[in-house]
């Protein structure tokens, strides 16, 4: 590069030539200092090598995006540890983890998938799988599950139109929690547990009669996505079904269903401590409620908060012992728009190996991993409460894997709300309204 100095007048030039001992620098290009040239060359070399490194690295490393819902201070480090272990074993794959919340995670996933972007691997609640699969946003992983299917349970949660769209990760169900001290005060043996609805009703009434601030039953208020999970165990345990075998007819207003809602309403109206799930659990842990239906997260809370409550977990009663409960779970899915499906599946399989499921369950006090091998670990078999959950999960039913399930769930919840909180003391009519709405939805 040439450096020249431009001066406008001859006088200026002459003046400067004179000042620098007669050397005419104006007609000779100035050379930059040697050090500057060396620095420049080094910079060029650095940029070139960096570019080469980036391009070569980009070819070698695949980065997959993983969206998940576990942000708890105890669980997140375990997720990070599992991801780090995976990256160590698979140096060609990097995993970026993004945390979602249950409050708005669904909306974020919907928007991401709608824009044909989104993560490669995503954790979905089992109720959402059909909705996304039906719209073509989830990859069909049926072929990849063939060799592993026998080792896992919960495939029904992610099977839609005979194809598998997600890998069951952690399963969940609800059991009956009993306050032993209260049932003893009510005249029962401390190990007593109701084996059918008649016995449950009797025990609930007896506990409820212990005092003004003691309640027999914990009853959910009109809480979205939760109320139906409490009603459906009654519904199924009475032998009611949502649809006929061929799926053509909605049976939600059958006599069995009406009986189930009658009992649910009676417990609610006569002996119910009515609050949201958290409120019910608070009252149960404070020793105010005899019986509640809850999940294994309550075991974690009791342990973390060092509660001194004397409680038992038993199977949900039925008309004949034992009853049915609700089955749901966390499903790991692959985005159909992902270009890294192979790496995504590899990661999902790694998360689901027995050791990693065990790590996760220990951190979260989850009782029911999807991996059958993992479930055999002493951590699960030595805990009587976990054993209850394990038994209950074998007697649990999952809602239909249907793209319209989220709407159906809303319709069912409205019917139960109407029965519990409506002006009219009706049970059958809200269920008939629900049937009409569900049939209209299916025939649209």
């Amino acid at each position: 590069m040439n450096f020249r100095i431009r001066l406008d007048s001859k006088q200026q030039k002459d003046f400067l030539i004179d000042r620098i001992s007669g050397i005419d620098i104006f007609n000779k290009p100035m050379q930059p200092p040697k050090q500057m040239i060396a620095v420049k060359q080094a910079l060029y070399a650095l940029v070139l090598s960096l570019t080469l490194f980036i391009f070569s690295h980009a070819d070698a490393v695949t980065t997959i995006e993983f969206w998940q819902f576990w942000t708890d201070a105890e669980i997140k480090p375990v997720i990070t540890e599992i991801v780090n272990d995976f990256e160590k074993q698979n140096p060609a794959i990097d995993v970026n983890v993004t945390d979602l919340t249950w409050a708005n995670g669904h909306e974020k996933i919907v928007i991401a998938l709608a824009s044909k972007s989104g993560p490669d691997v995503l954790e979905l609640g089992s109720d959402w799988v059909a909705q996304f699969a039906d719209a073509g946003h989830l990859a069909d992983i049926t072929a990849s599950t063939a060799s592993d299917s026998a080792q896992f349970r919960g495939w029904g949660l992610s099977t839609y139109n005979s194809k598998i769209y997600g890998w069951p990760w952690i399963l969940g169900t609800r059991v009956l929690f009993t306050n032993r001290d209260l049932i003893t005060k009510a005249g029962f043996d401390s190990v007593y547990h109701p084996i059918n609805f008649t016995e449950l009703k009797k025990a609930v009434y007896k506990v409820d009669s212990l005092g003004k601030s003691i309640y027999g039953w914990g009853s959910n208020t009109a809480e979205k996505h939760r109320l139906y999970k409490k009603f459906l165990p009654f519904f199924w345990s009475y032998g009611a079904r949502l649809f006929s075998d061929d799926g053509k007819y909605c049976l939600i207003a059958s006599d069995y269903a009406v009986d189930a809602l009658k009992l649910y309403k009676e417990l609610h109206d006569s002996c119910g401590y009515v609050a949201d799930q958290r409120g019910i659990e608070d009252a149960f842990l404070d020793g105010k409620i005899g019986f509640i239906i809850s999940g294994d997260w309550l075991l974690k809370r009791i342990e973390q908060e060092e509660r001194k409550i004397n409680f038992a977990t038993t199977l949900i009663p039925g008309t004949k012992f034992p009853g049915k409960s609700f089955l749901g779970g966390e499903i790991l899915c692959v985005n159909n728009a992902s270009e890294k499906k192979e790496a995504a599946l590899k990661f999902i399989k790694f998360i689901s190996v027995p050791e990693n499921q065990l790590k996760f369950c220990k951190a979260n006090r989850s009782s029911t991993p999807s991996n059958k091998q993992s479930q055999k670990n002493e951590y699960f078999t030595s805990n009587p409460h976990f054993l209850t959950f394990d038994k209950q999960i074998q007697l649990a039913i999952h809602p239909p894997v249907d793209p319209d399930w989220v709407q159906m769930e809303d319709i069912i919840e409205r019917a139960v709300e109407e029965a519990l909180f409506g002006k009219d003391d009706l049970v059958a009519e809200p269920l008939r309204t629900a049937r009409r709405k569900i049939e209209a939805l299916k025939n649209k």
Partner: protein
Amino acid sequence: MNRSLTKVLGFALPWSLTFLFVWLFPLVYALVMGFTDYNLLRPDEAKWVGFQNYSTLLADPDFINAIKNTFIFVLGTIPATTIMALIMALLVNRSFKGRGLFRSAYFLPSITSLVVISLIFTNLYQRGGYIAQLASMIGITVPEYGFLYDNATALYSIMAMDVWMSVGYYMLIFLAGLKSIPDELYEVAEISGVGYFRKLFSITLPLLKPVALFILVINTIKSFQVFVEIFVMSKGKFDTMTMVYFIYEKGFTTTLQSGYASAAAYILFIIIAVFSIIQFFLLRRKEPLW
């Protein structure tokens, strides 16, 4: 193009681009979407359905209920907020010891996060909460399961919280209006031997008319768009579904029917526009409003 015009366009460009792409484009896009069966998960399958979304909406009992609840909210909160803000502004405009403290205290809820306030009030309203205990102490019957779990009280409880939260903000605007009234008018009135209420009705209130109407307009728009309180406190349950919550639920949670939700949003837009036009008309009136 001369240089001054280039400069003008240059200065206007950032705002114009923002207006075009952030405001106008979504507005027009939503309008078009309202005439389709656009589903968020199936954008490629959207079909033109004409006015079907609008006719379905007007026959949808949930939407009609949401309109009813929104009007109850608007018509219930605006007069209460405006009158209370005016009274409080008149009170803190007087000179007394600790006036600054009162002004700050009343304004404090306005600078607190709405989500935080909603969570606090959710606790206050629950069964056995402070409000239920206070009400019981003075012999008022409280809902058995808590104020937010009863069809008869849930919406009104949220409205009461909204009034409590907003009143300080509008008080400050009224206070600014009061400060702009020339002292000479009051001095003349005092020399003429006019009493407090005469001064209030003949000087203060007529001169506060533009401020009051400004408050009415912005409060109406804000109240029609009530969402956060409902989202945090009731999720639209117990007869608290409002129009914006309905739009959110249809568009983003249960059915993902963005076309349907967009049509509902345009009905809300028309309602707000009509109210705003009426209020602007009142604002331009020359003759006294009261």
